[in-house]
């Protein structure tokens, strides 16, 4: 489709001769949530590193809203409207929660804004009001994850890359994070999500990309991908129970 917000074509990357990303192509439609699933080491985080300019790709192209990202430095990619929540939370430890988020609101996507309002909204949306004046290094793991998300949000992204935002969270905290992602989608932000828990993937995603050893082995709706024989073989091990499909809210 041509209305896509992000188009990745033939993405490839090797580390010391070892091909970690092997000719991956996909598109993201605006306002959708797409999940990338795949075993550890499949190359999910590397895809994020390539999109955001942390790593330079060997071959292929990444086009965001009509402009190629492949030669741009990371900060310019952020200014175009791509934000990233890291797999390992990286809050600025000595700054308060508010100042962490404020830094993002002062920079981030180019354009007019009221930074204080943007920061306050992001903090509120991610449920961090109670700890807004705490120093980031005093936060619980769950709050650090939320801060990671709030900071990404405060850059006012058009596309959010969230790398395992629920890793290490308990069931309640996971639900909170997923709720935030759902509200992001409803406010028009496109989300590319890396998530391990299939139940979460099935409930939140519009589309799913299944990755194995640097290759896309399946792509489609959550139901399609979860019932794909190749995916079951490579990743899920056993077929998913029907209940996962039925839980998906419409």
């Amino acid at each position, binding site marked *: 489709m041509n209305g896509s917000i992000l188009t990745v074509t033939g993405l490839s990357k090797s580390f010391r001769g070892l091909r970690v990303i092997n000719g991956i192509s996909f598109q993201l439609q605006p306002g959708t949530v797409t999940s990338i699933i795949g075993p550890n080491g499949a190359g999910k985080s590397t895809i994020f590193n390539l999109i955001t300019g942390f790593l330079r790709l060997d071959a292929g192209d990444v086009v965001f809203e009509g402009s190629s990202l492949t030669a741009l430095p990371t900060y310019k990619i*952020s200014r175009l409207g791509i934000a990233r929540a890291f797999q390992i939370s*990286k809050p600025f430890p000595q700054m308060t929660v508010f100042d962490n988020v404020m830094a*993002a609101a*002062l920079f981030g996507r180019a354009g007019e804004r009221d930074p204080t309002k943007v920061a306050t909204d992001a903090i509120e949306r991610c449920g961090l009001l109670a700890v807004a004046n705490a120093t980031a290094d005093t936060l619980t793991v769950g709050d650090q994850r939320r801060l990671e998300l709030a900071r990404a949000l405060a850059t006012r992204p058009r596309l959010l890359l969230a790398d395992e935002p629920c890793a290490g969270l308990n069931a309640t905290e996971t639900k909170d994070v997923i709720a935030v992602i759902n509200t992001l989608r409803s406010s028009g932000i496109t989300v590319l999500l890396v998530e391990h828990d299939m139940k979460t993937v099935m409930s939140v995603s519009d589309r799913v990309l299944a990755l194995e050893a640097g290759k896309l082995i399946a792509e489609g709706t959550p139901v399609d991908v979860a019932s794909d024989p190749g995916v079951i073989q490579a990743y899920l091990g056993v077929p998913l129970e029907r209940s996962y499909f039925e839980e998906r809210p419409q």
Partner: protein
Amino acid sequence: MTGLDRLDLRSKITGNIGAWIAVGVIALVVMAAAPAILTPFQMRVGMSIFFSAGLAVAWGLLGGYAGYYSFGHTAFLGIGAFTGALLSNYLHAVSPLVVFGLSILAAVAVCGVLAALIAYPVLRLRHSYFAIVMLGIAYVAAEVINNFDWFQGSIGIVVPQVVPRGMRPEMFFYYALLAAAAICVVVTALLVSGRVGYALMTIREDEDTAKMLGIATERYKILAFVVSAMLTSLVGVVYAFSIGFITTGAVFRTDFSLNMIVCSLIGGIGTIVGPVFGAIILTVLTQVVLADALSFRLATTGALIVIIVLLAPSGVLGLVRGAAARIRQ
């Protein structure tokens, strides 16, 4: 959540600017009036404090805010001093104050340009690599000035007298150093109290993450480096005029570089009042308390570093804040 909760959201970085401006203005007025009652010895202590405070604040713009610890900032002090000294010897026709002003401008400009030229390559290095390279740069600059006769670094160079007729030299340089320190404080405060401050602090905290927030980290690092070098040279050139005769060894001094760091550490790194406090504490301790025990000064400085790093890693300011927080609870 209630409306009150929302109003309570406040930046720890920019939240108290009004109060700090008031404190700064009061401090400046007090210090400007102080010579009326100070003894000559106390005036000299005051000058030492301004000198150390100006340098520490200038160093802290890069070291404290951006987290790039330079171990060789005396390079800019020395280059500034020599630029001013050399230029002023060509300018004797004009009035002394014009010589002084032009020499300062030239010194600051030369250091700004030199810093801008080396900024990009040296700031690609992080942590101890950057620190050590700056130490090397200071040695190289000192060697160059020492070995090329044109600079007169080894034989020394007389800096013309610029004190207006009728004014005591120590009075003049008290105010000159006070002004230099005040400029360091004001310029640094203006820079760090807005977007630039946030950018520098995120660089210190996590440079790669900062980039992902749309922050052009290279640009802000270079800005901090260049301004820090210019402010350091400002203090350096005023210092050169105040001592009247300089050699390489008198202005390229590793203990100057060290003092900038120590003052910041003692007072509280990553702030402006911290280095100022540090300069006061260190100067009073070494020049007043230990005035008669010259040989103990360096040992005291060393001991202070050890104590601070072990017991109060965020400096005196950190101790004060911690105590204040405990009282409030």
